[in-house]
């Protein structure tokens, strides 16, 4: 089932913070976060694993809630380069752990000077 991302769009000034949420109806084995700029391939940002481990970007952080059904991506002191569409891809707990990701519909982030 497709995860739901919120908000759908965010406009920030440089230096401001943002939080993007990704919610699923199922407990998740992992959540993968990607950023995509217009006309480009999605770029990996971070993986969150149900055991609490994180792999990824040192300027971006993320968390799982207790039930492992929601992840939040934290962008602090945003830069112009943070602009793009952010996608979460989820791997349901109990799946065959194939890495087959179900992606949310995306959150468009625009950082203005």
């Amino acid at each position, binding site marked *: 089932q497709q995860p739901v991302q919120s908000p759908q769009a965010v406009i920030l000034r440089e230096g401001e913070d943002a939080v993007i949420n990704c919610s699923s109806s199922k407990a998740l084995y*992992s959540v993968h976060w990607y950023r995509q700029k217009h006309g480009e391939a999605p770029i990996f940002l971070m993986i969150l694993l149900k055991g609490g481990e994180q792999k990824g970007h040192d300027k971006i952080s993320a968390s799982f809630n207790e039930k492992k059904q929601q992840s939040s991506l934290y962008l602090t002191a945003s830069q112009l380069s943070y602009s793009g569409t952010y996608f979460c891809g989820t791997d349901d707990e109990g799946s065959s752990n194939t890495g087959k*990701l179900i992606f949310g519909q*995306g959150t468009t982030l625009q950082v203005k000077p």
Partner: protein
Amino acid sequence: GAGVSQSPSNKVTEKGKDVELRCDPISGHTALYWYRQSLGQGLEFLIYFQGNSAPDKSGLPSDRFSAERTGGSVSTLTIQRTQQEDSAVYLCASSVSGGGTDTQYFGPGTRLTVL
């Protein structure tokens, strides 16, 4: 090193024609994924290859879609009798070994337009 490459970058075809899209994964990556991204939408899983195992085809939208992976490396996605609703960007990704903890690296995509 070289990333995931896809060809062609753009493909315009007429309704009813067949098309082939190619993906070259990162060398040494055993897992390969195809996704589709329609205009303004998220990524939709199509098919997954892992080593010599049978592919997971659960995301293919119809039997007009098929894919193969030769020699555990290059993959071709074939769409037969294309329809206008097939217009989208087709993205390929690869990862070291598959699995939910592996990073997937995406190629630049092939933009397919069906007239």
